[in-house]
């Protein structure tokens, strides 16, 4: 039974999450949303940027951890820092651009100036602070961060377990995902950003939802050549969803594309024939061409990392909660550092084809998600079913729980982790 008017938030939330279903109020209750910002977003490893986005000394990106603005930057020695975006004088943000390159962050209000390591370096007219302010105590506040395979995560939680152990079983899949540089280190190629009118968990679920693909993305599938359309017709094949622990899961849609360095002798798909010809023309040997061509379309899986980032086939998907019924999404294209232009251009065009606010896929996803949010207002009571595939689970080779590719195994994994953190 759902404890509607229960004052104890933990007990109320516990009553809203079963193994096979979750209550619709999780999408629409503003009190629950406030609780999530604290218990989920302030108490986890939150992905903030990819190292290639701040490749040079002095480069930065701004990001959000829940509602808290942060700066991810690289100092002059090449060290990465994640800093609270708040001047230590009277609290203005010191940086408002999404990304850029600077020598210092200078607060626009009274001109306090901070180095890229956060240290307060100078302030105008220091006389009035004589013997009452020590600059070394007033640097931008640094937030703990760790990286894995170029992915930068930060956390406000002092005793948070190491990133390594948090990622756990997901690391193997991150390693596989990073092969799509085609032999070159993965770098980001740009971000598409947009918002939809719906709760963030609707997006979290969607990254591990293969069931919707042939329905929602029918118009995308029609836009593919026959050979590629067959590859995307995966619901009856050998794919699976595996619970990787800590709320993470992987959904393998195209098993043949799990390892992009395997099977290099396979015939080159029709749609990549022009790319292969172009790369060969530029003098790349056959093996290099095959490696790039196989990596060009991305991997055959979505890795959903709890709570805010996914390695989704060929791109990073980041979510940021704005309010209980609004979510910001970034679709971040990736390619290879130093890879041939033709390769990165191919990756960009494929990304634009499906992703982003004008892609052939995302607008239809967005429409479905907004419908879920509107539907969540129907009736006083109601459940979101996530029981698909529960009667046919099996152990994976790694000893995890796995189910069919179109099962809701990944959603259950995420919601059990969510419950664990929300009821403490």
């Amino acid at each position, binding site marked *: 039974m759902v404890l509607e008017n229960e004052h104890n938030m933990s007990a109320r939330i516990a009553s809203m999450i079963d193994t096979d279903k979750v209550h619709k109020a999780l999408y629409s209750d503003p009190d629950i949303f406030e609780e999530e910002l604290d218990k989920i977003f302030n108490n986890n490893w939150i992905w903030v940027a990819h190292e290639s986005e701040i490749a040079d000394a002095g480069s930065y990106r701004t990001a959000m951890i829940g509602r808290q603005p942060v700066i991810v930057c690289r100092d002059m020695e090449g060290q990465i820092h994640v800093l609270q975006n708040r001047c230590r004088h009277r609290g203005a943000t010191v940086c408002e651009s*999404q990304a850029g390159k600077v020598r210092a962050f200078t607060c626009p209000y009274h001109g306090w100036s901070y180095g890229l390591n956060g240290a307060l370096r100078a302030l105008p007219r220091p006389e009035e602070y004589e013997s009452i302010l020590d600059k070394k105590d007033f640097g931008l506040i640094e937030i703990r961060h760790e990286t894995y395979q170029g992915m930068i995560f930060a956390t406000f939680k002092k005793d948070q377990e190491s990133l390594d152990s948090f990622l756990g079983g997901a690391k193997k899949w991150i390693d596989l995902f990073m092969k799509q540089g085609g032999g070159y280190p993965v770098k980001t*190629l*740009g*971000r*598409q*950003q*947009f*918002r*939809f009118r719906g709760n963030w968990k609707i997006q979290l679920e969607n990254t591990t939802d293969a069931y919707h693909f042939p329905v*929602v993305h*029918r*118009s*995308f599938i*029609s*836009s593919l050549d026959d050979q590629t359309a067959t590859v995307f017709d995966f619901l009856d094949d050998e794919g699976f969803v595996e619970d990787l622990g800590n709320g993470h899961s992987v959904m393998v849609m195209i098993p043949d594309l799990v390892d992009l360095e395997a099977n290099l002798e396979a015939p080159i798909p029709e749609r990549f024939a022009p790319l292969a010809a172009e790369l060969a023309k530029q003098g790349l040997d056959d093996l290099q061409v095959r490696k790039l061509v196989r990596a060009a379309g991305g991997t055959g899986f979505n890795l959903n990392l709890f709570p805010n980032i996914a390695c989704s086939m060929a791109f990073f998907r980041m979510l940021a909660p704005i309010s209980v019924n609004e979510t910001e*999404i970034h679709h971040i*294209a990736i390619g290879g550092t130093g890879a041939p*232009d033709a390769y*990165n*251009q191919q990756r*960009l*065009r494929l*990304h*634009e*084809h499906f992703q*982003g*606010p*004008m892609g*052939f896929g*995302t*607008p*239809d*996803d*967005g*429409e*479905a*998600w*907004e419908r879920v949010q*509107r539907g969540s207002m129907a009736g006083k009571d109601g459940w979101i079913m996530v029981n698909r595939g529960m009667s046919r689970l099996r152990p994976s080779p790694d000893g995890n729980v796995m189910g069919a590719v179109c099962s809701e195994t990944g959603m259950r994994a995420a919601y059990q982790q969510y419950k664990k953190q929300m009821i403490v």
Partner: protein
Amino acid sequence: MDNMNQLDKSLVEVTAFLNREADMLDYKEYDEWLKLWSDTGLYIVPIAHGEENYKDMLNLAYDDAAMRKLRIQRLQSGHAMSAKTAKITIRTLSRIRILDESDDIINVRCAYCLFENKSGQIRHFPANLRFKLRRDNGTLKIEEKIVELMNSDTHLATIAYLF
């Protein structure tokens, strides 16, 4: 028009052409719209503004002839859930200015806004448009259309039409 100078004549011609282009999109005459394009034409909705090399950047749309055709097919298919919600769109153009004109190429820019009714809420998308038009056997063809949306780095998900 006899006493008009060449630039004025071109402006009249270009204005009529751009109005027709927008009208075709509002009234969903997509097959006719495709014929306004040169075979090498590019339709680009960039994220960053004022750049030269959109080929090497991530955009919202970067359509050559083949992609334009696919995009139109998607809108006409009836299978794109998002396209069904955008029944009526209204485009307005103004501030049309010819930047330069050579024998066969005219560069134009103008102010633009698209309005749509999205679930009872009117949304609007202001943008600067840049066109490169080619004179081709007495008619104009679009060689390049660049749509610089005012909020290209933040706007909403379900855009189910062309700007």
